[in-house]
């Protein structure tokens, strides 16, 4: 294989021994016999036969490539590993559990070619448990849309198409795979749209998710908020917090004054209210200082990046 393929399909796998072979067949069926695509299987430290089966499949077909991670890192690093190995001009990511349908890939790619950087699939008549999967997901997507300003109906759907150059400027870590559209919009100003895709019930294995991640997702949302609005000016976020703290302090100060006026001096010399007011003011000062530290860190990194030219493109009228 000499020249890079046009399309890379990236699939992270974790303990999907039954799904791998049908998955590769399905992708082959959807994309045809040409050599203008590649399928990158990322084995995320599976403990079952996934790696062996994937290696066999990859040996049988040069278009199928396997990247094995040294241990189980989680979905975000696995996806990043796949993106790092993808050579295509267009990259499609997909789940390894056969719930996504490779037949949707050509539609996503066609939509991308209309002038988008990212096309997110959204699952119509989703085949999952209502209470533990669909309801929390509905709320999460609403909150994500509200906080990030990226109106995507289904952030949790892995089936997405990206322009390769977008991915090269995107660096995923922690659990960011859930928020790729939001992160892409916030950090590199991607043009994003969505498209309905099919969704099948799980055929093999069990779902690797549960309800327990709600708090984590909430904290991640706080991070997204920071990344989105305050990447350039973190001091602003901290200053807003400082103003809120100072306002609480002002309320307590007013209470101190009121007590002092309303009651005779012997009864009004309690320390609780003034001390509480001081605590609030202290928090305000503390947040301002932290904001300055954040500003220092961001500024330092921006100065290093200033040498690079920002990415720009000429657009048609």
């Amino acid at each position, binding site marked *: *294989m000499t020249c890079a393929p046009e399309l890379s399909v990236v699939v992270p796998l974790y303990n999907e021994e039954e799904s791998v072979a049908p998955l590769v067949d399905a992708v082959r069926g959807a994309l045809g016999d040409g050599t203008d695509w590649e399928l990158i299987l990322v084995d995320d*430290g599976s403990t079952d036969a996934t790696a062996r089966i994937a*290696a066999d499949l*990859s*040996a049988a077909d040069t278009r199928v*490539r*396997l*990247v*094995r*991670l*040294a*241990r189980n*890192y989680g979905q*975000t*690093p*696995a996806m*990043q*590993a796949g993106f*790092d*190995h993808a*050579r295509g001009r267009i990259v499609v990511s997909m789940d390894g559990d056969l719930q996504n349908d490779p037949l949707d890939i050509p539609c996503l790619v066609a939509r991308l070619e209309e002038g988008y950087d990212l096309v997110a699939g959204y699952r119509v008549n989703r085949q999952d448990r209502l209470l533990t999967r669909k309801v929390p997901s509905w709320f999460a997507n609403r909150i994500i849309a509200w906080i990030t300003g990226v109106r995507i109906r289904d952030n949790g759907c892995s089936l997405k198409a990206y322009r390769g150059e977008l991915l090269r400027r995107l*660096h*995923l*870590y*922690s*659990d960011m795979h859930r928020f790729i559209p939001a992160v892409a919009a916030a950090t590199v100003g991607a043009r994003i749209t969505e498209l309905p895709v099919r969704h099948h019930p799980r055929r093999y294995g069990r779902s690797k998710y549960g309800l327990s991640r709600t*708090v*984590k997702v909430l*904290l*991640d949302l*706080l*991070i997204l908020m*920071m*990344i989105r609005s305050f*990447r350039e000016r*973190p001091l602003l*976020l*901290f200053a807003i*917090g400082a103003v809120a*703290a100072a306002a609480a302090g002002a309320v*307590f100060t007013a*209470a101190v004054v009121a*007590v002092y006026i309303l009651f005779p001096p012997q009864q009004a010399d*309690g320390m*609780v*209210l003034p*001390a*509480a007011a001081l*605590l*609030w003011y*202290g*928090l305000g000062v*503390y*947040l301002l200082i*932290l904001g300055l*530290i*954040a500003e220092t*860190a*961001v500024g330092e*990194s921006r100065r290093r990046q200033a040498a690079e030219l920002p990415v720009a493109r000429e657009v048609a009228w």
Partner: protein
Amino acid sequence: MVSKTIPLESAAEAVPDLDGDEPVEVSVLIPVTERPEPLVALYEEYAAPIRALGVRYEFIFAAEPWFRELTQPLATLAAAGEPVRAVVVDQTTGETRLLKAAAAFCRGPVVLTLPAYRRIEASALPDLIACIHEGADLAVARRWPRRDPWINRIQNRILHRIIGRLADDRIHDVACGVRAFRREVLLEMPLYGDFSRFLPIFAQRDGYRVEELAVPQHPADARARIYGPGVYLRRVIDLLNLFFLLRFTDKPLRFFGMIGIVLGMIGSAILLVLLGQRLGGQGIADRPFLLLGVLFVVVGAQAIALGLIGEIIVHLHAPARKPYRIARSTTTARD
């Protein structure tokens, strides 16, 4: 005697010069830091079993410039034709960097690190080397059975109980310092600071194959050790650092945010109860609980704010970091 003074950065690029006909198979790397024993005697004792293996080997003594004179007596050995080399490393920050810088000079595919004092019986070294030949990335010696006085054993037991809890793995002797590596492992791993101690734990976490081997303790090592309070304080800080690095390096807000949310909820609950009492007509201006509630909310907000600072730092460094490591046997991944 080969002697080089090279700054850390270029040391990593230095290409080892092969002078012999037969390639070196085992490099023994000895960092010379505080309290070394007489190095010539050390060499004689530990070289013997490796020489008996019949493989070509070399001993590399790595020292910071101010410990340079300690390695001088070895010059006579080198002059007598023994495979002894000295490496001087400038600007190191701790034993870990010293090891890493010196690893670039090791010519053998197997690198054995030894402390500059006798920890284990020399006869155990071939077993460690064999372990690497059998496919391990890292073989760690565990001094067992211990000959120490009970005071050392208790300290050791407590330390490793905590480590086992934090790191979910069974490394029984982090302080031993006798380890065999595949050379690449030593060069690949991001080593810094005081972390040579916890290196096996990080190696295991990065997906390297780590084996632990019980080896007999050297009689010279079996003396009572009671340290000053400063040393114990440093151990505690090390453990705290280990805990944070293992669990939250790329998600600091998970750690600080959880603390912040819990504190904030306790504080809010107190304040809400007080608010309810106030609306019920009770005075609250002199209630210490008001102060406590405010304090909890304030400290919670501080914790979350600190976590956000951590997230900013992680986010800014993300482009330079690879969040994963590829397994050694990627037979089919091209590029």
